């Protein structure tokens, strides 16, 4: 009977191979697919089972994990959640993660390759893996000042350290509470998320880096910089500044916000035109320089590029191929020019840093579970936007804006503040957007800031009235 037994053994051998092949396919080939399947709680549980590292501002955690009693072992908690929401983002069971919670997930969960040695140690010691910490570049005082000053308005504030590109503040209003979105109660999470989604003010939007608005008169910094760069103009160059500028090849006119001419005999110096935010002079200047020169200057300062800080910022843009009237409009930050608060803060920072634009960044350090520093972000120059002499001239003109021009509300006793107001129409019926961009102290700036207040309503003065005081508070907070 040994022959049939051998045959049966052969069949059983085939079954064994089938079993082995099958488990190999499941555990090796399809494993990735299965892990990524929606409804697979293991991946989530695994993440929630690890003590997720904190997100730090200075030495203080603004996001940290606390042990709970439920199946999900750790709960994410945020101190001053709404204040830091544009930085931290949220960490949700249902909606995934945003902000640094998303971009730094591998560090926070301890899965980054930076922890290779640490992980090997955990493996052999069989210890629970822990996540690493992320230290942000945020300045707590600046963040709080901006958040407090912006309360009740709709808009955002970004502050940058010009010499390095460190982002000192990134604030939005309205904001949201990441604590609720990161809770372990699915119903509560859904309810809150739906309410945020339904809110026309869009609190979930990361306004400082993704909300695009026409920069209005603040764009005149770029137009003026292009003018200086052309070599054809100095701050003392005299420009035509009539009450109204006839757009070329068009019956339309650009008017000054006060309906007046910018100077006697309809003439005005570049310095004065910037100080009083003379639309007609800058529209003329735009056409003199041409759209290519404007675009080049704008791109040097970060337009038409998407920055990852490491959160992905929206691309601020200067139009591709404007005709003459459109170029004139673009020169005063209208038409299709759009910028984020981050971008305009970068413009100010570039001028303040002798024309050198540093790449903006939000993560200062990555630390291991034992808080040992594993990686420090090194400042990196993005571009040389203007030559140092022009940067000095530009700075002097912007100080003049605050001292003698439209930016009076940003004056700080004892501190030379360079700034520029702006107000823009986003459409015919839309309420105006009020801007203020500034840096201080002008001679060696510690902070560059851009404030944008949406739905500002009022005309040109609103940049000074609504935005400048906020910028002032942020500057004071940094300098104090």
């Amino acid at each position, binding site marked *: *009977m*040994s*022959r*049939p*037994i*051998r045959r*049966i*053994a052969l069949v*059983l*051998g085939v*079954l*064994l191979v*089938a*079993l*082995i092949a*099958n*488990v*190999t396919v*499941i*555990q*090796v080939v*399809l*494993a*990735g*697919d*299965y*892990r990524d*399947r929606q*409804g*697979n*709680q*293991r*991946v989530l*549980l*695994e993440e929630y089972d690890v003590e997720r590292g904190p997100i730090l501002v200075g030495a203080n955690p603004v996001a940290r994990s606390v042990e709970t*009693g*439920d*199946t999900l072992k750790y709960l994410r908690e945020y101190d001053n959640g709404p204040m830091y929401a544009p930085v931290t983002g949220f960490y949700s069971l249902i909606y995934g993660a945003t902000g640094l919670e998303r971009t730094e997930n591998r560090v926070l969960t301890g899965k980054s390759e930076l922890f290779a040695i640490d992980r090997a140690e955990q*493996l052999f*010691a*069989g*210890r*629970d893996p822990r996540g690493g910490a992320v230290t942000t570049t945020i300045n707590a005082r600046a963040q709080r000042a901006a958040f407090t000053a912006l309360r009740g308005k709709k808009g955002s504030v970004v502050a940058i350290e010009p010499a390095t590109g460190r982002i000192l503040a990134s604030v939005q209003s309205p904001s949201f509470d990441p604590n609720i979105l990161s809770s372990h109660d699915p119903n509560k999470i859904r309810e809150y998320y739906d309410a945020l989604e339904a809110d026309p003010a869009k609190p979930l939007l990361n306004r400082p880096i993704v909300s695009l608005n026409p920069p209005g008169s603040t764009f005149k910094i770029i137009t003026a910089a292009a003018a200086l760069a052309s070599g054809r103009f100095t701050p003392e160059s005299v420009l035509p500044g009539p009450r109204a500028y006839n757009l070329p090849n068009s019956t339309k006119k650009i008017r000054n916000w006060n309906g007046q001419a910018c100077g006697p005999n309809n003439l005005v110096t570049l310095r004065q035109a910037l100080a009083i935010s003379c639309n007609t002079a800058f529209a003329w200047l735009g056409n003199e320089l041409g759209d290519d020169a404007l675009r080049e200057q704008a791109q040097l300062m970060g337009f038409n590029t998407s920055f990852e800080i490491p959160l992905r910022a929206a691309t601020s843009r200067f139009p591709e191929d404007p005709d003459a009237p459109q170029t004139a409009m673009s020169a005063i930050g209208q038409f299709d020019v759009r910028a984020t608060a981050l971008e305009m803060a970068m413009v100010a920072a570039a001028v303040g840093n002798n024309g050198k634009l540093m790449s903006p960044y939000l993560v200062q350090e990555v630390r291991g579970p034992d808080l040992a520093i594993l990686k420090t972000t090194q400042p990196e120059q993005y571009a040389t936007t203007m030559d140092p002499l022009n940067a000095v001239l530009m700075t002097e003109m912007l100080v003049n804006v605050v001292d003698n021009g439209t930016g009076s509300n940003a004056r700080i006793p004892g501190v030379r503040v360079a700034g520029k107001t702006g107000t823009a129409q986003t459409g015919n019926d839309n309420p105006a957007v009020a801007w203020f961009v500034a840096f201080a102290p002008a001679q060696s700036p510690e902070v560059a800031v851009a404030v944008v207040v949406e739905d500002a309503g009022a005309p040109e003065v609103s940049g000074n009235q609504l935005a400048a005081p906020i910028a002032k508070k942020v500057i004071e907070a940094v300098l104090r």
Partner: protein
Amino acid sequence: MTAVGTPPAAATSAPRQPSRRNVELILLVFAWMIGVLGTLQVGWAIGREPDTGLWVTAGVVAVLSLVAHLMVRFRAKYADPILLPIATLLTILGLVMIYRLDVAAARRADLNGNPLPTPDVYSQLTWFAVAVILFVSVLVLLRDHRILQRYTYTFGLLGLILLVLPLAPVIGTTVNGATLWIRVLGFSFQPAELAKIVLTVFFAGYLVEKRDSLALVRTKVLGLGLPRLKDLGPLVVAWLVSLGVLIFQRDLGTSLLFFGLFVAMLYIATQRRSWLIIGGLLFLAGAVAAYYMFGHVRLRVMVWLDPWPYASEQGYQIVQSLYGLANGGILGAGLGQGFPNLVPFANTDFIIAALGEELGVTGLIAILLLYALLIERGLRTAISVRDSFGQLLAAGLSITLALQVFVIIGGVTRLIPLTGLTTPFLSYGGSSLIANWIIVALLLRISDRARRPEVIAPSPDDALTQVVRRT
């Protein structure tokens, strides 16, 4: 003269086959050490120091293994040395995983503020003790497996009684829709587990007796010898009984196991492939009928073909099992570091998913190879034993194990539709553990007979060697 180079060692001893008992002992020590290390690893993973419970358990396991080993040493000296260590290792791996799942259950209860559940590992340990006692009893009481042949029909009757027992009033119990249990004096037991042994003995005895007539060829169709119509009887009876198990006890796995076992043994006894084909056709007929007649069978098949739409309900188990296996990947999450408790019945039907999650595909393949080795040893025993009854019995017992392993592991890993069967040696549950240890005892008994040197006159070869030595 040709034998000048013969090493003296070959000449000194008589034709005594080495008993290999020391190899067995060493392998048992390895198995024990793997268990201790596994338990320690669970402790490290959850940050718990080894407590007295661990050492008591390890001590009890050591004593039980030693008793089993000594019994083999004295009562089945020449038996295969691999069988006992593999069975022990599998049982120990089961204990480790059951302990690990106890830890998870305790932690969960603790977090939810519920009273701590009774750990299953100690009752499994108790069952292991009972299993070893029965293992010893079989080796002590059954001096020669051929004795069983005398009681062929008694076993047949006993098997049938065991099969229908769960349907009996008062003691029969239905759990999760399947009527497999009997409950006596607070203990629940699955008689089908014992029935599979008893019926294997019956099949072996019956087939040895009838094989000649069953092997007779009446007609040839397409070159295939078909058995006589009147000899189809036993096969049809086995088929009907299997269907009965399916219909009345709703136990797909057991039904499959019995029928597959009978057909395989029939084939071995008669060497007629026609039996395999007829059996296969009957199986198909039964399967198709079951598919159309029973909602639960249909559901199993649908969940098997595409479990994802049923992921949160009827397919929950299998989907969780797949997620767990995927989580394990190649090397596994590590003992104590996965989430095997997310799979319902993780310590019984789905213990393979739990092991696959924490030991990875590497560990799973190792376990599959352990089974393969165990079954291979069983079949080898079947081939080498001299009496037909012993051959059929050893083959039948090995095939029982093989089918069970394939049906449950294939089900849990979605190779075939899921049917409820325990995983031999690993699963939590007394009936299964006891039954499988009895199988090992019977295989050892037969193996001892197969390998035992007969009372021998020295063979001519040996005489020659000795002559050479003297020269």
